[in-house]
């Protein structure tokens, strides 16, 4: 019972043709729709709105022949923005302008609520503007707009339905892209939160909740790291354990709250102190303060160069801790006992250091509390002594512990004193008088040698001045210079400046360098000799014969004096060959026009042989040991020395 009763063949044929066409366009529409899967914003690749809009427009192109098309996207402020414009043509009547007009008229907002394509007559030559909302079931996402030629309006319905579906897909794609974005943001936020919480958790795990200081776990970790860092290095690590005295009694009498408050206050004071503290060079200490538990604190100090600094620091710590504090309105006096272990002397494992520091702390407690103890008490330990001397040497100059002794140089025949050698001594407060062999090496390691060298020269000048003799009659004083000093580029100028300042003629000073030192760097030595020579300072080659200077090199050195090495003198009495050796040296010195002096002369026999060999000057125990300044002055007044 069809509405149409036409049954003739033509109309059937017509119908058949129509159906075939419809089938074809349906198939085409299915094809276009199938391709819209590409616009789904569900993979990383196609998740951007640009990609989605591009894909949408490609699909629309296959459906409609438009003169121009544009996509408007609803932004987060709910306003429509032109997102993509296919063929902008500002010269011609522009689609965007038309849309602006439609927005003003209200047609645009009307079209937003029509879930189908809307064809509006455009202002121009019969063309139409097609609007189609881009919306999901729940949200408007944007608007599709196109300019159509008049004939394009006569579209088959299937085309427009397909357009609806394409744009519906586009809306879902945009929505899914946005949801992915939101999800992504959420995930990132979640990640941030997780990270922050893990950090906090880690902090909680590694810090003491009462003082917010590193706890035992973190402290152990830092200690192990510090030991790793300093293994084999020149500087040291000090581990201090600090225990409050009588803390338990405070806890018992005022309660745990008071105990907690005391711990907090002590922790703050210690933290402030460590922040303020400076080492000898004015650098802050690299220190880690930790609460190990109960009333026990740990302090890790790295990059320590001198024990003296540690002593000062720990003294400060003990003093700072032992003050009166007001805890819950009660005056509380606490003191602390501190034990110190030093890496590497007291162990190279964290556990050893900790237990040794603990032992030292217990000892400090037993010795009456409020004090500190080092673990290492073995002063015979060489490295420890070295370390300690190092610290003390730093203070030695300032505290006037260095002294000069003088050993006279005499003329063999007459016994007349022709000059002397200044020899440094360290009047150590505990160890007594130390010869240079005990500390010069340390001084060179610590770079104190320059300072000491200048001190020696200045002291020599002052001593000379103290003799109160006419400058012309002043004895010539030899000063030893080490290899390290030789490398100082300004040495000649600085030394000259000192003699000038002290008012001593430069030629009263003779610098002694060992042959070995010279031969280690002949060019450097030659340059330095030249420079010293030019300011008038005299030069001597010390320990001559012990090195292996060639005649050629010797000739090039602007030296004034050769000092025959004591080993030759010692062997003089042992046989003719040794005598001949010294004779050759004497001959050579004469040939080169150098003065000659024998050192280490201990017997009269040696003095006699030397005199026979025409070596007229000598120095040694036979005449005098090195003597303090007062004795030296007395000798000079006397003028001659007769061997005992």
């Amino acid at each position, binding site marked *: 019972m069809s*509405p149409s009763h036409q049954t003739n063949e033509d109309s059937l044929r017509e119908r058949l043709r129509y159906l075939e066409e419809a089938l074809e366009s349906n198939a085409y529409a299915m094809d276009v729709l199938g391709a819209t899967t590409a616009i789904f914003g569900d993979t990383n690749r196609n998740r951007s709105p640009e990609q989605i809009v591009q894909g949408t427009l490609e699909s629309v192109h296959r459906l409609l022949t438009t003169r121009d098309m544009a996509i408007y996207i609803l932004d987060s402020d709910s306003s429509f923005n032109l997102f993509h414009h296919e063929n902008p043509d500002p010269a011609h009547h522009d689609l965007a302008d038309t849309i602006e007009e439609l927005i003003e008229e209200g047609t645009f907002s009307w079209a937003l609520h029509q*879930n*189908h394509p809307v064809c509006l*007559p455009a202002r121009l030559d019969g063309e139409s503007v097609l609007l189609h909302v881009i919306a*999901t079931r729940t949200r408007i996402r944007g608007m599709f707009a196109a300019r159509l030629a008049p004939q394009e*309006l006569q579209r088959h*319905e299937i085309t*427009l339905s397909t357009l609806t579906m394409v744009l*519906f897909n586009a809306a879902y794609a945009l929505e899914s892209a946005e949801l992915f974005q939101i999800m992504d943001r959420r995930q990132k936020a979640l990640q941030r939160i997780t990270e922050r919480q893990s950090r906090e958790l880690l902090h909680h795990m590694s810090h003491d909740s009462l003082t917010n200081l590193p706890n035992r776990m973190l402290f152990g970790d830092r200690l192990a790291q510090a030991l790793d860092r300093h293994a084999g290095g020149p500087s040291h690590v000090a581990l201090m354990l600090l225990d409050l005295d009588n803390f338990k009694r405070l806890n018992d009498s005022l309660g745990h709250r008071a105990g907690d408050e005391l711990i907090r206050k002590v922790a703050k004071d210690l933290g402030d102190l460590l922040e303020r503290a400076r080492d000898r060079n004015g650098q802050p200490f690299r220190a880690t303060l930790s609460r190990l538990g109960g009333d026990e604190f740990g302090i890790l100090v790295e990059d320590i160069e001198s024990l003296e600094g540690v002593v000062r620091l720990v003294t400060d710590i003990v003093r700072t801790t032992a003050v009166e504090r007001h805890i819950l309105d009660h005056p509380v006096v606490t003191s602390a006992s501190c034990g110190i272990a030093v890496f590497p002397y007291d162990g190279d494992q964290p556990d050893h250091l900790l237990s040794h520091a603990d032992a030292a702390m217990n000892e400090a407690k037993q010795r009456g509390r409020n004090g500190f103890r080092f673990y290492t008490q073995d002063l015979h330990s060489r490295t420890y002594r070295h370390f300690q001397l190092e610290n003390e040497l730093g203070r030695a100059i300032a505290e006037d512990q260095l002294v000069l002794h003088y050993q006279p140089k005499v003329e063999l025949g007459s016994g007349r004193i022709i000059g002397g050698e200044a020899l440094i001594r360290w009047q150590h407060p505990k160890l007594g008088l130390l010869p240079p062999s005990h500390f010069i090496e340390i001084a060179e390691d610590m770079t104190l040698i320059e300072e000491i060298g200048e001190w020696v020269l200045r002291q020599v000048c002052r001593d000379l001045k103290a003799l109160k003799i006419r400058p012309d009659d002043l004895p010539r004083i030899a000063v030893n210079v080490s290899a390290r000093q030789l490398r100082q580029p300004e040495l000649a100028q600085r030394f000259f400046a000192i003699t000038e300042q002290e008012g001593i003629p430069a030629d009263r000073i003779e610098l002694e360098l060992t042959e070995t030192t010279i031969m280690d760097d002949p060019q450097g030595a030659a340059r330095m000799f030249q420079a010293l020579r030019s300011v008038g300072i005299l030069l001597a080659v010390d320990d001559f014969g012990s090195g292996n200077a060639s005649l050629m090199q010797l000739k090039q050195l602007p030296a004034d004096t050769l000092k025959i090495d004591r080993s030759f003198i010692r062997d003089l009495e042992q046989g003719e060959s040794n005598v001949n050796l010294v004779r050759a040296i004497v001959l050579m010195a004469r040939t080169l026009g150098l003065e000659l002096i024998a050192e280490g002369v201990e017997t009269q026999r040696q003095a006699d042989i030397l005199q026979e060999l025409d070596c007229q000057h000598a120095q040694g125990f036979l005449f005098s040991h090195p003597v303090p300044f007062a004795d030296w002055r007395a000798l000079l007044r006397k003028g001659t020395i007769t061997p005992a």
Partner: protein
Amino acid sequence: MTLDDFIAEESALCSFSGSYNTIFSCLNDPGANVATITEAVELDPTIAAKTLKLANSSLYGFPEPIETLHRAVSIIGLQQIRQIVMSTVVIEHFRGLPVIGVDMESFWRHSLAVGALARSIARFRREGNIERLYLYGLTHDLGRLLMFLQLAERTEEVIGIRERDGTLLFEAETAFLGFDHASIGGALMDAWGMPPAHVEAIRYHHAPNDARAFPTETAIVHVADSIANALRLGSSGERFVPPVDPDAFERIGLEMPLYDEITSHARQQLDQMITILLD
């Protein structure tokens, strides 16, 4: 009587003639475009005038007056205009028929109300083509009109059953005939060559769970029918409100509070539609 008797017996009722027929075939032709549909509608001045009035009504809320049918077709959209024209044709076709047992005015008010409500529900669901649901709603009880026309005086017996048993009318129909007006309406839509969704929505609007292929459309008509009955927006002979099937309500997917808006939206349009279509 069998179902076929109702459809076949009086073909004049079930088929259109003259310009209605031309318009109807054109509307059913999926290849139709703006021009052909405009031409067809213009064949009948009444239909054309009513269509234009509807297009200009607040149902479509177009900000400017739409002066030509051609424009109305392109603005309202090809798909949507079909259902509007079709509903106009259906109303015009059945209005003049003598039916016993039902007040024609009230019947069409009810049908328009269900149409407006179904359309409104579809709108809130952001359906693509909401006029489709309007047509389903409008035609949901055509089967009853056909039934009463055929039964003539025997209609009283059906009403009698309703009165005696205090049941819903469609249950009385089944008791009397073995099938109800929904089945007749479905068969009529089928005979008119309407799409399967339309047929199913009408056939099962009292048993929405039996709709296999288009349960959502069926559910919308079902719920709209109950709302229209509850609000007493006209009547097609029901005394009581047919209960809403919870599954159908669930299927529509709109929350209960939204129905206040849906209803008030539909009521606003209903008055205009009545004025335009039933005057």
